[in-house]
């Protein structure tokens, strides 16, 4: 979701490269710029994000636990970490 408008000046060569890349990817110049911002300043590219969702969709073998059971798993993991730390400290 994009709500911020940014007006920037680029050189003729930069524009040529942006347009060529957009054509290659079959997307817009804006999308190429947004991906470049994400790649350079933190965040993943659209290709990486779409791949991540595809990987999650392909996951099999998970086991459903209701929300309160998930909370308990996290609490138990933390309790174990605390107990291990106490044992190590003697």
């Amino acid at each position, binding site marked *: 979701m994009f709500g911020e408008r940014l007006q920037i000046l680029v050189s003729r060569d930069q524009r040529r490269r942006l347009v060529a890349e957009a054509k290659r990817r079959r997307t817009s110049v804006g999308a190429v710029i947004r991906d470049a911002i994400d790649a350079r300043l933190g965040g993943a590219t659209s290709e990486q994000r779409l791949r991540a969702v595809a990987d*999650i969709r392909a996951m099999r073998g998970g086991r459903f*636990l209701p929300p309160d059971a998930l909370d308990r798993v996290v609490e138990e993991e933390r309790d174990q970490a605390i107990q291990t730390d106490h044992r190590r400290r003697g």
Partner: protein
Amino acid sequence: MSFFLDANVLIYSAVDSEYRVPCLEILEAVAERRTEARISTAVFEEVWHIESSGRAGRIGGLAARSYTLFTPLLPVTDEVVARALALDAPRLGTNDRIHAATALVNGIATVVSADAGFEGVSGIRRVDPRDERALHHLIGS
């Protein structure tokens, strides 16, 4: 409209149940930048804990994929901790108080979660992933 995702949305996107399809729809909308959803370092840690424990079955790699989708994560700051301590939310556990406070500190009023405990938290609207109408309003499909 920006919204905050609880860890169970990420977990449920990877395991078969009535939650899986709507949770995957949310993640797809995020990946395609049709909507703006955020998670925090605390939510990421919960997903990683649950994945590593093996208690939710074979969901290896879910935390890493979640990071790819949601980086940069919202931080849990001193301000978040102070807000969490001050929350009037008797039904929420400590983790969920941190999540609610993270949302509030970042100006986010909607938390998508399968956990009804978020209801009744002042300033927060909880959306269940199974609530088609509310969900489609959030992700624009």
